[in-house]
């Protein structure tokens, strides 16, 4: 039983890391651009599918993990520069609808290119198999995933707190108009933010492919989870999104032990509890 609990907690942690990555991407876009990115889920799916194709073409798993999020960033740039930017002067309902339309389009393109059947992407030999932790034998890829995601989160944290661009992004979340007044080109900031958000979504998608497989509906399924992460975290809070993502992953892992059929509902139970006891979210200010 203890083995089961520990391994499920580790599973939940891995899942939570992925949720944290996607959730932070959504939070960044939400905070800086002030729009809920409805295309975030399909960017995640696109990351996974591109990684699958690149890994099959080149035979290198690591190269796929490197390249596919970057391609997703290009798609993100395209969405921002061609669509969202033209709509800044309009009401944000329309930006939302535009991204919703893009989600439909990319979703269908994924089905057209890769077909409606799911795939699985195997981790490379160096990462497959299991490691003996002494008290527990655990799949190697999942452990590496947890470590790598943690590394990425630390990098992101350092980027946001220690670099100039990071400071501008954080300032953009706090007060967008003030950033504009200080003479910073907001269009560029928005473009980079959208790109960074897309990168995180694509990376999480690519990383998730070996453990969760690829299905055309993966983008549509992850999106509500991202929004729950944002709601639990408190709107626009990046540390909140990281912690909320990990918490939700862990609670899903815990639910797998005791109520396997309720793993998807438990996310919303967490959200419900948050709204009742802390309506502004865990890290929300207002």
């Amino acid at each position, binding site marked *: 039983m203890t083995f089961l609990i520990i391994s499920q907690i580790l599973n939940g942690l891995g899942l939570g890391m992925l949720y944290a990555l996607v959730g932070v991407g959504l939070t960044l876009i*939400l905070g800086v651009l*002030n*729009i*809920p990115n*409805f295309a975030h889920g399909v960017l995640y799916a696109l990351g996974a599918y591109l990684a699958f194709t690149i890994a099959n073409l080149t035979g290198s798993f690591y190269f796929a993990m490197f390249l596919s999020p970057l391609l997703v960033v290009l798609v993100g740039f395209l969405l921002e520069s061609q*669509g969202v930017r*033209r*709509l800044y002067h*309009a009401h*944000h*309902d*329309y930006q*939302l*609808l*535009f991204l*919703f*339309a*893009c*989600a*439909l*389009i990319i*979703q*269908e*393109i994924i*089905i*057209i290119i890769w077909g409606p059947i799911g795939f699985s992407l195997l981790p490379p030999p160096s990462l497959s198999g299991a490691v003996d932790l002494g008290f527990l034998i655990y799949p190697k890829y999942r452990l590496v995933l947890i470590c790598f995601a943690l590394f990425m989160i630390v990098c992101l944290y350092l980027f946001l707190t220690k670099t100039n661009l990071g400071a501008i992004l954080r300032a953009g979340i706090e007060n967008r108009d003030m950033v504009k007044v200080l003479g910073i080109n907001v269009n560029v900031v928005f473009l980079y933010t959208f790109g960074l958000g897309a990168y995180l979504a694509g990376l999480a998608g690519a990383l998730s492919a070996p453990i969760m497989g690829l299905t055309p509906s993966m983008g*549509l399924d992850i*999106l*509500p989870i991202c*929004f*729950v992460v*944002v*709601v639990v975290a408190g*709107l626009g809070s990046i540390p909140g999104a990281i912690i909320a993502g990990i918490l939700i992953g862990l609670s899903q892992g815990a639910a797998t032990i005791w109520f396997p*059929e*309720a793993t*998807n*509902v438990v996310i*919303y139970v967490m*959200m*419900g509890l948050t*709204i*009742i006891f802390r*309506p502004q979210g865990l890290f929300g200010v207002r």
Partner: protein
Amino acid sequence: MMKNKYSFIALIIFLFVGPFLFPNATIAEMLIFGIVAISTNIMLGYTGMLSFGQALFFGTSAYISGLMLLGGFPLFLAIPVATFGSFIISLFIGYFCVKREGLYFICLTFAFNQMFYFIAYVWHDVTGGEDGLVGVERPAYIDTQLTFYIFTAIMFLFAVIALYKIVTSPLGLIFKLIRENASRAEAIGYNVRFYKLISFSIASTFTGLAGSLYVLIHSMVPIDQIHWLKSGDIIFMTLFGGVGSFLGPLIGVVGYIWLSDTFSIIWARWPLIMGVIFAIVVLYFRGGVSELLENLFKKYKSISKKTEHEQNIKNRKLN
């Protein structure tokens, strides 16, 4: 007032001509989603709240009325119970959602929608899970195509008139006030949250009414009807028609359902085309169809006015 009179006349004409233009199931779907879009507009256009969770009420109510019909209850009991059910749910969910504004409101309604989706998905024994709720039968008295259409049209007219009464009542004015300036409304002494909740609740209750009718069209409730993509479609239909006028959203519904019906026969990947249309509409025709028509009308008017003005100048010069 004159404009509304004309659009109501157009509506009545549409109700008579519609069944000859579109197949039976399509026109029924148009009327039912017409109720959804017009009621959503009360919240979106009049009160200025964008909820991304309207499929929740549509789907839940469809499940309730479908289950009651399967359980042998009569239709005239199933519809009110389902509608009342979505009213209660909307009060409960609205209570938490209206506390927050803007983006947070969108996120919350969206997440609640998916919560109900998963409940329907997991609760296989009752809702049929992924297969949807099947085998619901229409009562004998609305089983023929004609009687079913008349029944839907009457329900539709009832809903439209009720919603029109709400919009033109003082309550409708308060909604508009909240949209224009919520803090001023608060200052005058209106409890903004309470009225937002009422607006949310009205929209959701009528959406629920439409959902309870939907189950009769295809004798089933597909689980898609409660998925968040449906909520997006509902928002799009409303905005596509134009939120500026009372009956505008109906144009959006007719256009949307006609287009999706047409494309879904041609190509299995029809949502791609719908997505492209969404994007084009959002980028270039933001006011929706009704505003497009209005602008054309205005342009025509201003051209005729201009020529009149030029004529006057010429006349003056001659004098």
